C-alpha cells in the first residue's frame, strides 16, 4: 500500500511517497509535479492536433481522388471515427501499454500507476481519461463560447468559466497532484526515471592509494551525509569543487598532501576509507547520520 511520508520541508521530499511491495520492501516514488504533467499534456495535445491535421488532409485528398460521391462518404466516416478515437482512445491506448504512459508522458519521464499499489486496471485508465471531458473539453468550449452581449450573459459566462477552472486547477490544490480523473480512476502520476548503474567510486581508490593510509581518528571525522556529498563531488569531477573540498577535509583531519597526489586521488581514497569505516559500523547496527552524530 502506498502512503505518504510525513510532510517534509523541501519540495523534492514533499513529492516522495513510499510504496510497499507485496515482498515487504518499501520503494520510494516521486510524484510527477504540475509542470511535468502540464508539459506532458501539451505535448500529447500537439500530437493529437498534428494527427488531426494529417487526417483532414488525407480525407480531403481522398475526396479529390475518388470524387465527392463515393470518396466523400468514406473519407467522412474515416475522419469522424479518427477524430473520435484520437480524442478518446489516444490516452487510453497508450496508458494501457507496459509503460503506462502516453508519448508526452514518456518524454517528461512520468507514468500512471494505481494509487493502491496494485494493478493498473483498464477501467481505471478509462475513468481517468473519460474525465478529460470535464477537465479539458468542457472548459475549452466554455472559453471559446460567445459570452453574449447582455450583462447577465457575461456574468453567466464568467461563472461558468470559474466553475470549470475548479476542475482544471484541481491538481494544484492537493499534495498528490491528483486531477479529477486520478481521483475517480484511483490512479496517480509518478516519475519513471531510468537510471544506468553508475560506477562505484570506491573502485578507483583501490587501484591508486591505500585507504588504510588514514587513521581511525581521521576517518571518524565525518558521517553518512558527508560521505554522500563527497560521492557527488567525485562523480561530478569538477576541478574547483574538488580543490575546495580536498582543502576542507585535509584541514579538518590534518592531512599533508604528498607531491604526486592530486585532489581526485586523495578524495577517492578518503571516500573509500570513510565508506569502509562507516559500513563496518553499519554492520554492527550503528548508522552515523552526519558528523554531529556520535
Amino acid at each position, binding site marked *: 500500500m502506498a502512503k505518504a511520508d510525513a510532510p517534509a520541508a523541501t519540495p523534492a521530499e514533499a513529492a516522495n511517497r513510499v510504496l510497499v511491495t507485496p*515482498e515487504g520492501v518499501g520503494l520510494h516514488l516521486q510524484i510527477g509535479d504540475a509542470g511535468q504533467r502540464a508539459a506532458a499534456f501539451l505535448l500529447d495535445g500537439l500530437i493529437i492536433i498534428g494527427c488531426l491535421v494529417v487526417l483532414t488532409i488525407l480525407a480531403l485528398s481522398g475526396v479529390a481522388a475518388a470524387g465527392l460521391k463515393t470518396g466523400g462518404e468514406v473519407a467522412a466516416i474515416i475522419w469522424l471515427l479518427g477524430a*473520435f478515437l484520437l480524442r478518446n482512445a489516444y490516452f487510453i491506448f497508450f496508458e494501457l501499454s507496459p509503460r*503506462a504512459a502516453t508519448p508526452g508522458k514518456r518524454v517528461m519521464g512520468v507514468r500512471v500507476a494505481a494509487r493502491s499499489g*496494485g494493478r493498473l486496471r483498464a477501467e*481505471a485508465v478509462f475513468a481517468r481519461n473519460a474525465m478529460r471531458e470535464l477537465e479539458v473539453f468542457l472548459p475549452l468550449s466554455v472559453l471559446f463560447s460567445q459570452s453574449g452581449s447582455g450583462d447577465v450573459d457575461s456574468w453567466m459566462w464568467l461563472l461558468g468559466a470559474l466553475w470549470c477552472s475548479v476542475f482544471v486547477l484541481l491538481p494544484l490544490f492537493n499534495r498528490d497532484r491528483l486531477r479529477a480523473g486520478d*481521483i475517480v480512476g*484511483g490512479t496517480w502520476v509518478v516519475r519513471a526515471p531510468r537510471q544506468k548503474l553508475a560506477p*562505484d567510486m570506491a573502485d578507483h581508490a583501490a587501484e591508486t592509494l591505500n585507504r588504510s593510509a588514514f587513521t581511525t581518528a581521521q576517518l571518524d571525522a565525518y558521517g553518512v551525509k558527508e560521505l554522500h556529498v563527497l560521492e557527488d563531488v567525485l562523480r561530478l569531477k569538477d576541478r574547483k569543487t574538488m580543490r575546495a573540498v580536498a582543502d576542507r577535509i585535509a584541514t579538518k583531519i590534518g592531512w599533508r598532501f604528498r607531491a604526486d597526489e592530486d585532489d581526485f586521488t586523495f578524495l577517492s581514497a578518503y571516500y573509500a576509507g570513510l565508506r*569502509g569505516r562507516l559500513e563496518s559500523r553499519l554492520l554492527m547496527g550503528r548508522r552515523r547520520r552526519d558528523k554531529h552524530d556520535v
Partner: protein
Amino acid sequence: MAELRLKSQRFREERENDWRRLESLMDKVERRGARSLTDEEILAVPVLYRATLSGLSVARATSLDRGLIDYLETLSSRAYFFVYGARSTLPERLGSFLARDWPNAVRSLWRETLASVLLMALGAVVAAFLIHSNPEWYYSFIPAELASGRDYTASTESLRATLYDAPKGGGLSVFATFLFTHNAQVAILAFALGFAFCLPTAVLVVQNGAMLGAMLTLFISRGLGFELGGWLAIHGVTELFAIVLAGAAGFRIGWAVAFPGDRSRLDAAAEAGRTAATAMAGVVIMLLFAGLLEGFGRQLITNDFARYGIAAATALVWGLYFYGPRRKEAPLGES
C-alpha cells in the same frame, strides 16, 4: 589487492550481472511490449525482480554507495510495475468484460439507473405539460437547428415526411457514424459531469427527457404519436437506455464524492469510478449499435410495425443481457 575491496563492493560485483540482465529485459519490455519476451525471459523476470529487491534491502542495510542504492530502487520500481502490472491480453479482457464485468456493473448501478429513468421521465412530463398549456414552450426545449422544421408551424404532412424520408444529402453510413461519435461524446460528458456532485448530469438527463417529451407532444397533437413512436423506438430503446446508464454512472461517481460514507473520499471515488467506468465503456458500445440502428435501420425500414418489432427485440436483448438470470458463479479472487 582483494583485501582492499569493501564488502559492499564485493556484494555489488557478485550480483551486478543479474541486475543488468533485469535492466535489459525491462528496456526490451518498455520499448517493444511484453510480447517481445521469450518464454524463458518471461519466467526469468519475477526471479530477477525478487533478487533485485532483496539486493536493494541488503544494500540499504549494508552499503553506503548511493549510486548503487538509487539504481536498485529505480530498477526495482520499473520491474515492480511490470511484474504486478496488468498483463491480460485484449481478447481475454474483452471476453471477461462482455461475459461478466459489464452486466455486473450495470446491475450494480440499478439504484442510479432508476433515478436516471425517473429524471428523464420527469423532464418529458414537465415538457409535455408546459407545451400543452402553451405551445411557445416548444422552442425552449428544442433548439432550432435540431428541430429543422419540425415545430408547431409545420404542416402535418411535412411532419409525417420527416418520419419516413431519408435525410437529404450524405449517405446513411456517414449519418450513422456521426450519430455514434456525437452521442458517445455527449454520454462521456454526462458521465464526467457526475463528478460535480451529480447535479450537471441530472440537468443533462432532464434536458434529454424534455426534448423527448416536446417531440412527442408535438407529434401526438397532430395524430402522429404512433408513427413517431416507431421512428424513435427503433434506435431509441438502445440510445435512451445508454444515456440513462451514462447518467447513472455519473450519479454513482458524484454520490461517492459527495457522500463517501465511512470510507475516505478518495477510496470511495476510486471504487465508484471502477464500476462506473466499466458501465460507461459498455455505453459506448451500445451507442455504436444505436448509431447503426438510427443511421441505417430507421432510414431503410419505414414500416411502423417492423420498427416496433426491432425496438421490442433490442429491449428484450438488452434486458436479458443485463438483468436476466445467470448461473451462480464462484466468487472470484479479484474483485
